């Protein structure tokens, strides 16, 4: 029987890894999740067969109750509230890890090396439980999403952390005269990290929460892994550590994508609130990311400019149009009267590449359509999409009609460098939240995009 259980754990670990791998591409992501789900059902089912298990019936009832609540709440919640649901369910996992540690430690029969792991699992699981709950409350606006700070906050957190470590150590060496003393110590040990986790989320602003949730997610994974070693459960060891590692890496990637560092997220609000006047930066994207954004769009509007002409990228643009149309994406070209260096420059250029005329739209025709476009792809254009022409009376461009690319859901800008346009002024569009930059020569970038989109 033991072997059958082990085999089921092994297979479920393989399914988890394959599922995660499939989650790295939008085309296979959903099946990847289903595959992992299959692994989960397998592991849970065979766990009932472990020799010497009791309370089967009660266990099934409790699982069914949890299943019903989890399913209904996950399906009922509006899509915009998904991040806090992730936080909440992550906290549940951390709490379960803490419970496992608590029961193992209170029984007091764990070997000392394993005891250390159980203590670590309990500590991390508790912090993750209450921290995730704090994140949930912030995102759900149950306590406002502004950073909450007070004097000596950092020092207080440090003291709580040291206290939890000290209590953990005391539990480890059983620094108490009697069994009840140990139990008291144990209770106290779990209370302090619970407090710490919650307090840690207070000074963090709502915008940084995704990174925080990602970090707590990694923490829960690690706690689960440690507990797995402590109770000798292979499924938990492997899956927990995998989540711990991938979650940590993901936290780093997310922070990087948001132009934030992890220390900045956790300690940024200490001492003083983040200044309102944030120095904005252009967000650069890799070709792979851009290709996915484009390949899964419904409608793309291309804004060509002088850079296209300089790079002689019109033929690549034609290829790009063809692969997108193969994917069922609607593609239109927005031609600004002064795009390029002469009127009609773009029309000629695109005609040369056999891009059909009926796909080219001029300013008045296309401007109302940007609001329905998923992506505005700006290829070597700059001033003709600068919103300052509409909003900033002090701008030399003010009053010039522009292509309203800033109204599309996302803007992708292919640009040689970070420099300014022909008019020598900064373009606010490049710093907007929905705008992503792909730096490089237009012909080169378009060529890579064509290859990448073919693969999606």
């Amino acid at each position, binding site marked *: 029987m033991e072997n059958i259980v082990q085999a089921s754990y092994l297979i479920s670990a393989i399914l988890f890894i394959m599922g995660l791998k499939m989650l790295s591409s939008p085309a296979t992501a959903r099946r990847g999740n289903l595959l992992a789900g299959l692994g989960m059902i397998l592991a849970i089912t065979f766990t009932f067969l472990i020799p010497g298990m009791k309370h089967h019936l009660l266990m099934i009832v409790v699982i069914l109750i949890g299943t019903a609540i989890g399913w209904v709440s996950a399906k009922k919640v509006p899509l915009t509230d998904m991040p806090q649901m992730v936080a909440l369910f992550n906290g549940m996992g951390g709490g379960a890890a803490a419970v496992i540690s608590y029961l193992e430690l209170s029984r007091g029969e764990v070997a000392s090396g394993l005891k250390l792991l159980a203590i670590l699992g309990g500590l991390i699981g508790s912090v993750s439980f209450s921290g995730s709950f704090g994140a949930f409350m912030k995102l759900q606006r149950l306590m406002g999403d502004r950073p909450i700070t007070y004097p000596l906050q950092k020092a207080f957190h440090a003291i709580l952390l040291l206290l939890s470590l000290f209590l953990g150590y005391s539990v480890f060496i059983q620094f108490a005269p009697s069994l009840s003393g140990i139990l008291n110590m144990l209770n106290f040990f779990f209370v302090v990290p619970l407090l710490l986790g919650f307090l840690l989320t207070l000074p963090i602003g709502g915008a940084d929460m995704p990174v925080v949730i990602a970090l707590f997610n990694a923490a829960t994974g690690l706690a689960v892994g440690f507990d797995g070693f402590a109770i000798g459960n292979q499924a938990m060891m492997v*899956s927990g550590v995998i989540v711990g590692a991938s979650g940590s890496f993901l936290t780093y990637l997310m922070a990087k994508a948001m132009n934030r560092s992890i220390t900045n997220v956790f300690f940024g609000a200490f001492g003083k609130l983040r200044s309102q006047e944030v120095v904005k930066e252009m967000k650069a994207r890799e070709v792979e990311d851009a290709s996915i954004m484009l390949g899964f769009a419904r409608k793309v509007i291309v804004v060509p400019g002088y850079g296209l002409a300089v790079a002689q990228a019109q033929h690549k643009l034609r290829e790009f149009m063809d692969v997108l149309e193969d994917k069922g994406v609607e593609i239109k070209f927005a031609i600004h009267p002064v795009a390029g260096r002469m009127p009609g420059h773009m029309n000629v250029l695109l005609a040369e590449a056999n891009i059909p005329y009926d796909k080219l739209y001029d300013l008045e025709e296309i401007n109302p359509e940007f609001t329905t476009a998923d992506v505005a792809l700006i290829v070597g254009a700059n001033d003709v999409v600068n919103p300052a022409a509409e909003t900033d009376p002090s701008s030399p461009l003010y009053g010039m009609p522009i292509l309203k690319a800033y109204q599309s859901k996302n803007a992708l800008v292919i640009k040689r460098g970070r420099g300014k346009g022909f008019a020598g002024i900064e373009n606010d569009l490049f710093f907007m939240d929905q705008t992503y930059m792909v730096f490089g020569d237009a012909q080169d970038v378009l060529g890579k995009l064509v290859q990448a989109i073919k693969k999606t």
Partner: protein
Amino acid sequence: MSEIWVALYIFILSGFTGFEVISRVPVILHTPLMSATNFIHGIVLVGAMVVMGRAETTVELIIGALGVWLGALNVVGGFAVTDRMLEMFKKGK
């Protein structure tokens, strides 16, 4: 090979696997992937079942049942949320 070494190997190899499987993930999949890993650490349910199944006293049973309940929520909620996010990646007709 003693058990501690086997455990260490499992730890290290699983860690590298974790890094490896997500190293090429595009930005738009960051959130669904985080949600999926959130679902996968729901495997903690299995451990909670094991400790609940060993409960001797009523207190242990109650605490164990709490763990199982939390684990089940993690598993089911994590899966359903991930699935809903990924639904959005279906191509529009």
